[in-house]
């Protein structure tokens, strides 16, 4: 279960973005630094029940990714409260955290450790991951020689090898070739049916409509509507 109460996320923007110490001292001496706040999320409240598949829709820059980051513990909200029951596995950008110099095998252990899996578990699930990604022949090749498709396949296989309690999916359903897309789609659907709490962000309203029970519509950092997925989508389409 995910509980989000009145969450606001403010980004502090200096009037000119300051990235160097030199600039900072100069503007400080001139007393020129003015901070503006950008409200990426404003008073967002939301509850996703255990085992629910929840969709998030909205335009670019509406705050969907920020909301996912707050749920993934990457950003701590400026005000408000997030409570998670169960461990969250983000399926954000696949392949993030790979070390290009290391082999596929070494990267499976590294990436699993980044996700917080225990080494002993990974060892026993290792072959299963490799065969799902279809990389048996290349597992001892450095990842820098992999194609983008191979990297995302491996990333997906690592992150979804065991059924997670809470899964966050940000537009990653279309990885690899048609065959892999079908298999990864099936795996996600199995999780959805099997009690995993899923938060799905996509611009593809058809996917959202098919997979989710309820959905939320974010607009300029605020929740515009929460409800049954068909209602939210039709309101959103009407609005555009």
């Amino acid at each position, binding site marked *: 279960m995910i509980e989000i109460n009145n969450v606001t996320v403010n980004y502090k923007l200096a009037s000119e973005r300051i990235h160097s110490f030199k600039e900072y001292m100069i503007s400080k001496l001139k007393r020129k630094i003015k901070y503006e706040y950008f409200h990426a999320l404003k008073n967002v409240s939301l509850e996703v029940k255990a085992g629910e598949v929840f969709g998030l829709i909205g335009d670019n820059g509406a705050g969907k990714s920020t909301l996912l*980051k707050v749920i993934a513990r990457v950003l701590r909200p400026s005000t*408000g*409260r997030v409570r998670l029951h169960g*461990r969250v596995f983000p399926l954000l950008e696949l392949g993030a955290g790979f070390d290009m110099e290391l082999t596929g095998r070494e990267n499976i252990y*590294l990436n699993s450790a*980044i996700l917080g899996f225990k080494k002993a578990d990974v060892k026993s699930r290792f072959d299963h991951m490799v065969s799902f990604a279809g990389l048996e022949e290349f597992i001892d090749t450095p990842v820098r020689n992999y194609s983008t498709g191979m990297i995302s396949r491996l990333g997906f296989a690592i992150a979804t090898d065991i059924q997670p*309690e809470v899964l966050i999916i940000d537009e990653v359903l279309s990885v690899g070739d048609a065959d892999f897309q079908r298999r990864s789609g099936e795996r996600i659907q199995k999780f959805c049916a099997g009690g995993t709490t899923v938060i799905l962000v996509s611009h593809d309203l058809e996917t959202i409509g098919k997979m989710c029970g309820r959905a939320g519509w974010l607009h300029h950092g605020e929740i515009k509507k929460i409800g049954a997925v068909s209602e939210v989508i039709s309101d959103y389409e009407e609005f555009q």
Partner: protein
Amino acid sequence: MTQKLPVYYDSSKRRIPLVAEFRELMRYRELLTLLIANSIKTRYKRSALGVLWTMLNPLLYMSVMVIAFSTLFRFKIPHYPVYLLAGLIAWNFFSQTTTQAMNTLIWGGSLLKKIYLPRTIFAVAAVGNGIINLLLACIPLVIIMLCTGQPIYATWWFLPIAILILSAVSLGFALIVSMIAVFFADIIELYQILLQALFYLTPIMYPESILPPFIQRFLVINPVYDVVKVFRTPIYEGHLPSAFSLSAGLVSAFLVLLIGWWFFTRRADQIAYRI
């Protein structure tokens, strides 16, 4: 109805970051050992000389210095190569771990924007990496000592404590500079200049006694001076630091670590907003 899982994370509950971060780090200790192992692996895999290079590097550097300094400046240090190399090993540990912590936090920052990890992990891994490099660098030191006839004193047993002090100070500084680098990218270059200055201000290449007395008094505020000495004394002079300077060293090392840890963890939540 699915069973209700216990609360795993509550954004409004902040235990003291100082303690919470340490517990998180323990939870991710397998990642920590992997990060250390991997950086050692990638470092040595691609170079033909492999591990040999880490040992050769200080040796070559030392040879140049010995030739330059024993002819240029005529200070009398018996067994100068040992004095120099022992000091250099401690210095390299400090400068490499702090620099590496800074660079890996910037690298890891892109990861921290996507997934939660204990944020101190990169600095701690840099120190772990430094300890391994330091142990490797002790091999050529022993070879030099055997070749030049400098006795290997029983006081070597003290080195683990010296390394502990060295690690605490380096980690404290690594945390501070790497957090500053998150906010100001130009600190990375500025820090290299500061390091250079600090190196010349620390008695590593030269004996302490050539410094004018009024500068010697300022050595107290040089953070590296003590740790270099704590490491070098048992190797070079064959006696332990006095009980007073040892306890002062231990206390100040852990104070530096505590300040660095506090400084870093207090701001750690802002990293994802900044990088």
